[in-house]
């Protein structure tokens, strides 16, 4: 009886949570006359793909999508890898300034990003002169900057997962003569992998949804634009193109959902690992 009541509550909450997303998709497929209406209906009998067609005719849509996916995936891998190494360092070792370092990792997230864009702009302009491939106007610059911005959080998350692996495991391996490298890759990595799935979600979303760095760094190389930049032209609430805004939003949300579904099982299993500190 009690479970049935709780089930009903859970389903009701799920409906409330999902409703704005339903509305987003609905408005995207509604014909214009039904959107600018003083009598909104929560369904439509004449769905139209006109708004999607308008959004998808942004030239080179496929290329922008590919750029965005590429940046997001490389960031996920790089940030996960670097964070894994650093997380092992801060949990398995005691060294001076360890706690200070952990706090410093957080400080970076406290600065308003707009304040950092100007120094970063010059940093990448100058870097580009010495290291080709990560200067302005390259996808490399976006990969580097997002790797940096997702690292602190990833390290903090993974710290819990590494700590959850009993240290007796690697001590035993060390006695058996395994090298540090072997311990890292053969013992710790597989056990922490679910945790990496969890942090990858954050890195993916951060890199995927970014407007700020994409608009600051990709000045003139049209071929290196990312998807949100191409869709930004529709986000003009003052022009009342609700259909266009919602269609663009839907298109931006779908890839993240796909990524979510891919890592979902590992995500829930993985996040639990962080508890047994």
């Amino acid at each position, binding site marked *: 009886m009690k479970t049935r009541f709780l089930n009903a509550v859970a389903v009701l909450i799920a409906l409330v949570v999902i409703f704005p997303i339903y509305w987003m998709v609905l408005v995207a497929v509604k014909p214009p006359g039904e959107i*600018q209406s003083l009598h909104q209906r929560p369904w439509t009998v004449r769905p139209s793909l006109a708004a999607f067609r308008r959004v998808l*005719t942004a030239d080179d849509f496929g290329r922008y999508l590919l750029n965005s996916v590429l940046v997001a995936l490389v960031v996920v891998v790089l940030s996960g890898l670097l964070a894994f190494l650093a997380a092992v360092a801060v949990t398995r070792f005691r060294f001076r300034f360890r706690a200070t370092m952990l706090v410093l990792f957080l400080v970076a997230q406290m600065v308003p990003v707009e304040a950092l864009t100007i*120094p970063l702009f010059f940093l990448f302009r100058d870097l580009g002169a010495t290291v080709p491939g990560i200067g302005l106007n390259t996808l490399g610059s976006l990969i580097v900057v997002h790797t940096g911005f997702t690292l602190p959080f990833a390290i903090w998350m993974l710290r819990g997962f590494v700590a959850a692996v009993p240290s007796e495991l690697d001590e035993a391996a060390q006695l058996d003569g395994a090298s540090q490298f072997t311990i890292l890759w053969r013992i710790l990595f597989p056990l922490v992998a679910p945790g990496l799935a969890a942090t990858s979600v954050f890195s993916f979303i951060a890199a995927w949804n970014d407007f700020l760095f994409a608009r600051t760094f990709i000045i003139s190389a049209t071929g290196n634009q990312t998807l949100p930049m191409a869709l*930004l*032209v529709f986000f003009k609430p*003052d022009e009342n*193109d609700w259909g266009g805004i919602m269609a663009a939003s839907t298109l931006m949300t779908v890839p993240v959902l796909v990524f979510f579904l891919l890592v979902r099982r590992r995500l829930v299993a993985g996040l639990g690992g962080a508890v047994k500190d």
Partner: protein
Amino acid sequence: MKVRLAATAALALALTACAPSTSSPSSTPSDGGAKTGTLKVWLFDEPNRAPKEKVVNQAIAEFTAAHPGTKVDLQYIAVETRSEKFKGAFNDPAGAPDVVEYGNTDLPEYAAAGGLADVGPIVANWAEGSGLSADAKATATYQGTLLGVPWYLGVRALFYRTDIFSSLGLKAPTSIAELTTDAHTIRSRQPSLYGIAVGGQYTYAAMPFVWDAGGDITSINSPQSRAGLKAYTDLIAPDNCPPQNCADLTGGKTVDLFASGKAAMGILGNFNRAAVDAGVAKGKYAVVPLPGSKPGSIAPAFAGGNNLGIMRNSRRPALAADFLTLLAGQKYQTAMYDAMGNLPTLKPAGDAVAAKDPFLKPFLDAIAAGTRFVPLNPGWGKVDSGAVLPTMIEKVATGKATVDQATDEAAAQIKADLG
């Protein structure tokens, strides 16, 4: 070990560069630069870009045919991100374009940054250049230097519903007082309607009232400015457009209200025609210039619009000038009107489109009566982004401050920002 070395090197590199980086200003090649190669052009993206694209592509084809060995690399930039793009282009000349489209209210900021080239000599030597009015040129001039060619204008006028006006026996208002009484009549006879849709965030609808009264943005707490502001904020009241609904409206929302039939009048631009025709107001409205306080007069309209300019860092200024004068010429201004409804800035082009389309007459009348502009000062960007004027209007409309208090506060802020 190798990694550690590289890191040390990177660190050393970072530490030696202590002072904030800046760009060293580079100068335009005095010989006009290369006559061949790739010309980079930035134009604004639009939600419905296809017609604009078609016209521009036609111009590019004509240009490359006349200039063998050249290529035009055209990029559409989102209005939303223009600020970062332009700053980026000023700071990194390597990625900068040659010819740019920019909003005329952004001019002081770009000019102060030293990003735009003087096009005065180009316009002086351009046969069609004489078709630009002084008012139009003023919107592209900063401290005496012409930094662009006005490409098109957007002007607002009074849209009103002919069906509602005739059913209530009203005529198009010829003064602000008449407009106000008409609005009250409509609201009292048909309480579901707003007489005229006005908004607290719609600065470009409020300013004509101030300018008409003899005030200005730089003297917003003068008695004239206060009188004009009061005439506008008095409209944000329960007997026309209640503060609860209208105090925070933007220009776009008032278009929405007029188009969806919720308002009997609205101060809309020539560029809003398509939006209005998509709503229930289609075919049931007419347009007159926004009247001033003196019967029969026209309130000065805000001369919004976009200019075409040449970047100071351009490596091909002569080629850029040729492309600019082609695209800004009568042929393509007229074509842009047909494609996007952009109001031409060249008088012959304006006359040509007005002859074809009577809808334009009230807007051109408003232009002929004289237009006004925002202060040409790099601090204007700060007044604008700090929402100084909307905050002032909203404070009065919601009763949070009196006209005197709100204008004094705004005047102090404007003075500080404009320096």
